[in-house]
């Protein structure tokens, strides 16, 4: 819930008179989150939104470019050059995973703060270059890890931070979803997505563990398979995976990153994290809140949990206004990307991979 909608709360700082609108540019509609971000930004006060999606429209049946902008009621320009010439204060990059770098670099050169969709990049080289570009331009880089803003995670952090769980020993994370085919074909093309289920679903849990423990991962061991969705010819990467991470000091964690939510399930999937400490065990399930039931079409899942995307965007907008970095930043994006890359290497070689 935003402060502006709370009765009796002070007025939203961004709606105070005299503050000029914040210009936010949306680069690419490749990622399915682009439309959601656009809708949320439209509800936030004192924001001007403009988008461009010059690479869209090649895949049949995908609504992209001017068409999607019209659906959303978002102002649209035909090229990124035109978009950046508008001198946005902030840019949100929602291109294909492997195409983040040129857009982030261009946005940084144009002096805009950047929020980049996860994973930050598909190679460490790209991620470091993006961070360097933002540092050189002295602009903020944030990574879109909305689950960090889950109130359940905030409570877990508080509990762990005040010693309520004792010494943290281990964690089990799951991020299981439906396979992202249909809406956007590139998700299952490793050239553009950077891989399969591992690149898609390790980072959120890895980032939560990073934020929760502050511990440094030292070893990664992963196994993957392609039994799920083996009947879908468009799937060209692993669909199931188990990733085990050893941290400095002995903490251990395993993440199930599989696309194991069946196509006919009533919801997209979810994320869970169980943390084991010497004083107790805590479980979070940030997407659990829902009304369930059955309609003539089958099982239904009416979710009502906190919209963490809205909280993430709010944090980003405040970071831009304040002109300083907020979490999760580019460094957080790089740390979790290193785990993904190590997991991919481990699954490929069968070895336990050390990371630095």
């Amino acid at each position, binding site marked *: 819930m935003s402060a502006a909608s709370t009765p009796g709360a002070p007025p939203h700082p961004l709606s105070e008179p005299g503050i000029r609108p914040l210009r936010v540019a949306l680069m690419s509609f490749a990622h399915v989150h682009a439309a959601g971000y656009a809708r949320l930004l439209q509800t936030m006060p004192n924001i001007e939104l403009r988008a461009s999606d010059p690479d869209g429209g090649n895949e049949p049946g995908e609504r992209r470019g001017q068409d999607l902008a019209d659906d959303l009621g978002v102002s649209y320009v035909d090229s990124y050059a035109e978009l950046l010439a508008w001198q946005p204060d902030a840019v949100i990059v929602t291109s294909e995973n492997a195409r983040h770098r040129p857009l982030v670099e261009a946005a940084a050169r144009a002096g805009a703060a950047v929020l980049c969709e996860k994973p930050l990049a598909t190679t460490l080289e790209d991620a470091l270059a993006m961070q360097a570009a933002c540092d050189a331009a002295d602009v903020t880089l944030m990574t879109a890890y909305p689950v960090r803003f889950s109130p359940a995670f905030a409570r877990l952090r508080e509990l762990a931070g005040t010693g309520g769980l004792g010494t943290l020993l281990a964690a089990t994370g799951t991020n299981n979803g439906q396979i992202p085919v249909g809406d956007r074909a590139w998700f299952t093309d490793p050239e553009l997505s950077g891989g399969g289920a591992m690149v898609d679903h390790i980072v959120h849990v890895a980032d939560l563990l990073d934020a929760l423990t502050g511990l440094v991962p030292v070893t990664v061991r992963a196994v993957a398979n392609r*039994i799920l969705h083996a*009947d879908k010819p468009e799937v060209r990467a692993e669909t*199931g995976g188990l990733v085990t991470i050893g941290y400095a000091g002995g903490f251990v964690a*395993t993440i199930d990153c599989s696309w*194991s939510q069946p196509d006919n399930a009533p919801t997209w999937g979810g994320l869970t994290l169980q943390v*084991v400490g010497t004083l*107790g065990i805590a479980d979070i399930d940030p997407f659990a809140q829902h009304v369930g039931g059955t309609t003539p079409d089958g099982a239904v899942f009416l979710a009502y949990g906190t919209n963490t995307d809205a909280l993430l965007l709010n944090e980003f907008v405040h970071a831009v206004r304040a002109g300083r970095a907020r979490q999760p930043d580019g460094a957080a994006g790089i740390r979790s990307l290193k785990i993904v890359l190590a997991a991919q290497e481990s699954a490929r070689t069968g070895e*336990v991979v050390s990371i630095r």
Partner: protein
Amino acid sequence: MNIGLIGAGGITHVHIPAWLALGANVTVFSLEGAAESAAQYGIAVADSLDDLLGACDVVDICTPTPTHYRLVERALRAGKHVICEKPITLNTTDADALAELAAFVGKQLHPAHVVRYFAEYSLAQSAVAAGQIGEPAILRFSRIGEFPSWAGWFADEAQSGGIVLDQMIHDLDIARWIAGEVTEVYAVKNSADGCETAQVVLTHERGALSYVTGVWGAPGTTFATSFSIAGSSGVLKHDSRTDASLRFDLGSPASGGHSMRPDTSFGESPYLTELREFAAATLGGAAPRVNLDDATRAVELAAAANESIASGRSVRVASQAVPA
């Protein structure tokens, strides 16, 4: 049927009532606590192991793991069928030796992997075997309880094999039961302040991957199990914390539901189901759903996991099907 039960620890409090409900005569022998057991259940006490072996047809071994090998050996050599608690032994060499001995003396040796007799696991296995979720792909199993501080030997890894061999062996067995033989094992473990937890990843021959985790947690930790089995055409899930037909809140923290075992009081005790199946087999009936080879393979998986924990590397599990 005359049962000679050895031991007086925790598990005997579910085995003895099950035997009595099955109409068996039970005689108990234990270095400690036999008289109390006898008084509690109205059963006979043997003064020595020889007396016990002289008074029974089937021996039920409910003692700490490191004593299993010698006791099973004694009972088999005395010509008795034997039921032995899991893990059958601390290593596969001992298990293989017992298998040879059982074959030599022509007696049955049944490993008490009771989780196969819990309805949720047995149902899931049947459903997967019937193809209801297609080919198993990614499986997860979790088992959480308080640290077994009621007997000192659990905390001594040399005697118990730690959480992997003592507790997680249940789910290692179930993962293999459902997803088939295992070719590779990787495991990690962490412990502090009287708590112990481990995580094991199995690569199955048919391609499935299983994650097994166990927790021996803080005193008062409520016993809980869960699993999720994702296959090529569906998913099966169970969680003892939410899939229970009774939950209560009596308003007092002291009334917490912690227990070393799940509450199975709403149906037939799975311990009874297990012992009935073993007893029927000793009388010439059908082979039980779990056999000595399963138990040996489970010990092999647990030993491989402990080896992986020690070395930090994954461990190949030797191919089984190479009889000379």
